[in-house]
Structure formats: C-alpha cells, structure tokens
C-alpha cells in the first residue's frame, strides 16, 4: 500500500480533477519547514500536500470560511478536508449544528499513525482509542498496524486537581489565566468557536472590557470553556496554539468528564443525538 501522504494526494487529485470539490484543505510545509494548513485549488498542486507527525492543526475550523456563497448567485463552494479521528467528530458537530451541509463537503479521513510516536505531547493522543474517523468519504489507511491506547482517558490529572483545596485551584487557575495575552488564538483554532461576534469582543451589550486584566481573562476563559461544554471534541487545537501555554485542555476535559457523567454524551459520536445543553429531560433531577 502506498504511503498515507500518497493516498491523501491521490484522493485530493481525484476530487479536484473530477470537479467534485473546488478546494482541498490539507497540510503543507511552510517556507521554514513548519507544518501549516494548505488550500489546494488546482489538481496540479496536490503534491504540496503532506502527512507527517507534525500535522496537528484541526482543519475543520476552515470549513467555516467556505460555508457561504462567495458572491451573489454563485454556489456555495464544495470543499474536501483532511481530518484525523478527533477532527472528524468536529465535522459531525458542525453538521449537527447546521453549519455545513453534508453534500458540500468531502471528508478525507486519515487513520492516524503510531499513537505512541504521535502523542508524546498531546493529551488528546495519549488516550485515543479511535482508529477510523467517525465520518469519512475516503479512508486513508496506515501502512503499519496502528497502536491504540488500551485504556480510555482516566482523567488522572483532573481527579488529582479535584482533591486540592478550592483556594489552591483558584490560585492555580488565576496564575495560568494571568499569562493570557488575549490573542484569541484558542478561539480561532477551535472548530466549535464560530460566533459572528464573540462575547469577548461584543460592544453592545458590552459584556467584557477589552482590558488585558485578570478579571477579564478569567471571564473569557471560563466563558469559552462553558460555551464548549458538551460541544468540545477534545482535539486540543486550542492548547496547541496557545503562545502562553495555558492548559486549556484541562478545562475542556473536565467539562467532557462531567457531561459524560451527567448526560452520558460524547461530542460528535452520533450526529443525530442532540447536545445535552440543547435539550432537556423533564424526568431528571440533577444535583444543583
């Protein structure tokens, strides 16, 4: 079997040559050798696409750029996107929230390579048990068998933090949030953060000042975490782009844990299931 990179290029070439899509979103090498998102419009350019261990951005974020018609009368562009297993659940999220239409996207699902090699740094990879993406049109098979985690996320670090005194936790988070420079990179990298006007920047009503001060930073991060409650797919894109290394995945995983505990729901697994905060059950009585 050809390498995963070759398979991605072949799939992209077939989609572009057949006129199925007008753009393929994948990964490429930047001028300094770094991995960056690539937008390929011509079949002749597909050799720019790469696949490597460093391909860590969640490209489904860019689907938002293609969900509207570029000008009056023109059709909504059709897009192919390269996704990993975690990103594929974000595709399901966006489909469910009616941000994109299934007919307008082609999903090139990659079975990620060796988890142990990939996931040294990323919390998302450490406990990943997903081999195939939950949604795909073209599956990119690995050359060698994939090693999956044998245990699901045990939330060991979260459980440890829950043992701390509240003052310790608050001190920890205020220290972490204090480093924030409010660059909003976490928000931009997140496929679930697609509001036209973010609460953090809204002027009317003016929820939060633009001051880069601790109360505003606290407000921004807790607000963002809660907006993603039951919606975060756990791709860790926010943490990966944070220039100040704020452990945002801890917040998201805490909420994922609680959502699973309270509602038995995991984001993106089932595109038909309603997100827990968008629905209710008259029979349930939750601890308040």
């Amino acid at each position, binding site marked *: 079997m050809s390498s995963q990179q070759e398979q991605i290029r072949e799939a992209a070439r077939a989609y572009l040559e057949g006129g199925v899509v007008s753009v393929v979103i994948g990964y490429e090498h930047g001028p300094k050798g770094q991995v960056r998102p690539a937008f390929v419009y011509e079949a002749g350019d597909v050799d720019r696409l790469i696949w490597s261990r460093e391909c860590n951005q969640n490209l489904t974020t860019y689907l938002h750029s293609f969900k509207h018609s570029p000008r009056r009368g023109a059709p909504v562009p059709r897009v192919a996107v390269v996704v990993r297993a975690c990103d594929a659940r974000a595709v399901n999220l966006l489909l469910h929230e009616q941000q994109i239409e299934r007919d307008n996207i082609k999903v090139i699902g990659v079975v990620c390579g060796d988890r142990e090699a990939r996931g040294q740094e990323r919390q998302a990879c450490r406990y990943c048990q997903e081999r195939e993406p939950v949604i795909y049109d073209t599956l990119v098979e690995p050359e060698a068998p994939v090693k999956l985690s044998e245990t699901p996320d045990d939330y060991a670090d*979260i459980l440890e*933090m*829950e043992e701390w005194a*509240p*003052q*310790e*936790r*608050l*001190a*920890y*988070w*205020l220290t972490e949030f204090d480093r924030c420079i409010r660059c909003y990179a976490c928000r931009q990298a997140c496929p679930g953060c697609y509001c036209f006007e973010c*609460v953090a920047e809204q002027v009317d009503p003016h*929820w*939060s000042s633009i001051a880069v001060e601790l*109360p*505003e930073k*606290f*407000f921004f991060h*807790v*607000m963002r*975490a*809660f907006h993603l*409650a*039951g919606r975060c797919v756990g791709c860790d894109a926010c943490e990966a782009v944070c220039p100040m290394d704020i452990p945002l995945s801890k*917040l998201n995983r*805490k*909420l994922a844990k*609680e*959502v699973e505990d*309270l*509602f038995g729901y995991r984001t993106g697994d089932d595109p038909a299931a309603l997100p*827990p*905060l968008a629905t*209710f*059950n*008259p029979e*349930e*009585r*939750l*601890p*308040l």
Partner: protein
Amino acid sequence: MASEKLFEPRIVGFLCNWCSYAGADLAGTSRTQYPPNVRIIRVPCSGRVDPLFVLKALQDGADGVMVLGCHPGDCHYQQGNYIAQRRYALMHRLLEFIGVESGRLYVDWVSASEGKKFAQIVTEFTEQVRALGPSAIRPRPAGVALAAGEVCA
C-alpha cells in the same frame, strides 16, 4: 481584623418573573425579614439566565450569585427551568473546578406562594457566603469594606 468584621457579602439574585420574583414580593408584603445583601434582578425565566450572567457578576465583584426559578413542571414557558437545571448542574461543577467555592452559586426553585421559603433561602445563602468570605476574583481595594446595611457598592 476590623475589615473582616465589616464584611457584608454582595449577592446578585436572578429571579424568574413568574414564580420567584412573585415569591420575593410575597416575602416583602408579608413583612418577612431577610438580609438586604441580595440585589435582585428580574428575568423572564430561569432559562434566560445565561451562565454568562453569573460569570459577569462574579467578575464584577459579586461574592455570591443565586438563580431562582419555578418548580420543575411549573415553568411559564414549559421548559425554561429544565434547561436551566442542565446548565447549572454543569456550571456548578465548572466553577468548583476553577476554584470558586460551589457555595457561591445557589440554584433553587421558589414558587409565588413561597415567600417564607424565599426569605429563608436568602438568609441561609447570605450566611453561607459570609462564612466563605470575600470573593477572590475581583478583590476589593484595601480599606473599602461595606458597612452593614450599606446598599450600593
């Protein structure tokens, strides 16, 4: 310390128009005593209370926040309090994880006939927040402590 003696909790209360606000009104018309620490904001429904409001209150220096709505099944809009219930079950756990003591947020159901219950809830919650002390999210400037009975901060 003098400033600790002077600590009066600032509490923001979001009350649903149809049940809890009427309950508070009943407490008032029946001359039931309850602490003046709670600043009441009337909202159409507990489902209107975005957790953002709670965060905003905490960010702006509230020491405690209470959200009161109709009893389950009694919502004027059929489902608002069920949705609030789901939100606040999560919000409690998130705030606790951030290190805001879960005692600073209180969510309960108060009907229009429960003036006594309203007064009791406010009394208990005020004492609870008083015991927790001032919120650390936006500490008050040194020396600025509210005297008992002072209404505006």
